[in-house]
């Protein structure tokens, strides 16, 4: 029976569906598709991590954990952040284990945003950023990075967008979908602007382990920035643990404690068995990370060299597992390109337009797929381009 009014909130009804959804629906009806559209590792979680999680279940660790997560895990995260990125956090007060970095972002925004506060979102970016800002009652303000800057955000671009309502800057390095890594000197310049305008930075560092040319610099490690940064990260990408849904946030005590209130009322705690897996990952997972990283690096080289050979201009991204070649000279929109490529050659890529401003004219190709598959995909894309 039809009800006389809609029960949907304005927020929910106005929320746009993700552009990726349509491609997922299209691609999943077809057979023999080679997908370069997957935003997650092709590796299965390292066996020692799976085994540790099994073991915890056998031991009967099936109850809730502390709201902020198992203390041992938080301690290991603190040690890891200190050893890898030289940022010091207190395990007891400054870290929350979350359901993926996505929940960490949601918590952060809910904790800092008052209605109408503006958040500068550096685009192209992960599809959830702007909607999550909106859901928290904020206003996402897109900052468009440009291919001529290798998609690096320029400090003066922040200046141009700052208003008295600007509260936060949301960055992601290495970036999804461009793979761009902000180096220490880039971050230093951003830090100056952030300081001047008294902003807080939400730094999504989920791909931080996956950099191939230069050592990674965390935004929180920039002088004076730890107090202004919420460092969002997790186990999904580096440890190939996407399905475990386990992330964390580290930051200034006051902010983390406010986020913990929201976390305890909305989520209670992250999955216990996943947390036990993560403990093993941090204790004994380094070698697995290095092996996977090596493999990604080789695939990146292969894919970048192949795209440039085919004639789709592609900058060499320093991290994550995406390349973002330009398809502008084909005259097609990124959506038309992706759709035709899928229909004609059964290769799934994601149109750049779904990642916000500056994405149009590009396609995102994930190289988290075997070299064999990548080789076949490149052959098909070459055939497709030659026919255009």
């Amino acid at each position: 029976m039809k009800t006389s009014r809609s029960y949907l909130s304005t927020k929910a009804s106005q929320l746009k569906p993700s552009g990726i959804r349509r491609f997922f629906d299209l691609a999943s009806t077809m057979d023999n598709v080679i997908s370069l559209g997957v935003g997650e590792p092709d590796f299965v979680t390292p066996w020692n991590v799976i085994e540790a999680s099994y073991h915890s279940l056998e031991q009967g660790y099936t109850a809730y954990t502390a709201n902020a997560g198992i203390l041992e895990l938080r301690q290991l995260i603190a040690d890891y952040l200190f050893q890898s990125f030289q940022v010091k956090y207190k395990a007891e007060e400054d870290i929350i284990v979350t359901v993926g970095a996505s929940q960490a972002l949601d918590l952060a925004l809910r904790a800092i945003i008052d209605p109408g506060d503006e958040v500068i979102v550096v685009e192209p970016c992960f599809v959830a950023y702007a909607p999550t800002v909106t859901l928290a009652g904020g206003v996402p303000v897109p900052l468009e990075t440009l291919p001529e800057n290798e998609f690096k955000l320029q400090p003066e671009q922040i200046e141009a967008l700052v208003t008295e309502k600007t509260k936060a800057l949301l960055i992601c390095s290495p970036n999804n979908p461009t793979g761009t890594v902000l180096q220490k000197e880039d971050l230093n310049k951003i830090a100056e602007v952030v300081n001047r305008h008294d902003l807080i930075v939400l730094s999504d560092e989920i791909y931080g382990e996956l950099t191939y040319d230069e050592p990674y610099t965390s935004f929180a490690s920039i002088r004076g920035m730890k107090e202004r940064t919420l460092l969002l990260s997790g186990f999904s990408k580096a440890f190939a643990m996407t399905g475990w849904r386990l992330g964390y946030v580290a930051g200034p005590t006051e902010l983390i404690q406010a986020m913990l209130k929201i976390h305890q009322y909305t989520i209670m705690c992250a999955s216990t068995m996943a947390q036990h897996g993560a403990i093993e990952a941090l204790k004994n997972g380094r070698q697995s990370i290095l092996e996977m990283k090596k493999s990604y690096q080789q695939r990146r080289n292969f894919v970048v060299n192949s795209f440039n050979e085919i004639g789709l201009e592609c900058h060499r991204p320093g991290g994550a597992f995406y390349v973002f070649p330009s398809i502008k000279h084909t005259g097609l929109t990124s959506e038309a390109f992706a759709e035709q490529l899928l229909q004609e050659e059964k290769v799934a890529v994601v149109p750049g337009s779904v990642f916000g401003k500056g994405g149009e004219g590009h396609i995102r190709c994930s190289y988290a797929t075997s070299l064999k598959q990548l080789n076949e995909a490149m052959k098909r894309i070459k055939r497709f381009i030659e026919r255009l």
Partner: protein
Amino acid sequence: MSLELGLIFTWFDLFDNSGKGRVMKVEQIDIDLLDLLEKNGRMPLDMIAKTLDISIEEVEKRMENLENHHAILGYSAIANWSKVLDYEGVNAMIDVKVTPTRGVGFDKIAERIYRFPEVKAVYLMSGAYDLSVSIQGKTMSEIGLFVSEKLSTLDSVISTTTHFILKKYKHDGVIFNPDDDDKRIVVSP
């Protein structure tokens, strides 16, 4: 038939500097090259070149160099004979205790064993026995005959213990009958 291709080479040749064989100095790129070829001995040269970010000519030069130094001993298929009707055969691993010979240690007796074509591998072991011999035959009785008539009758051999392989799960890093379906959803953010 399930057939994968692999590469036969010896890391030992690269790093051992105590043996009498020629040992080569290698660069990281040679290690990466060997790694790729060990996983797929049939990887096309242009693909290797793009993956390692070097020219095809350099790939060829480095492979030739590795071959000349016997760091690459050959390129072969990893055959899963159990998938081929009537060709499964029988494999066994034999623990062999021997008396080493003065002056040449275990090398001489090892050679007398590895010269037999049915012997697929021979290793000198630490622990309860000395040589581990891996052997392939058509039938169990064929292997039985080899052990009783050829191996046990060698002067230095004190005893043998034969273990027949019932099922291969993993061999040289390759999982037999793998479940390699991609379990990820086809497009994700």
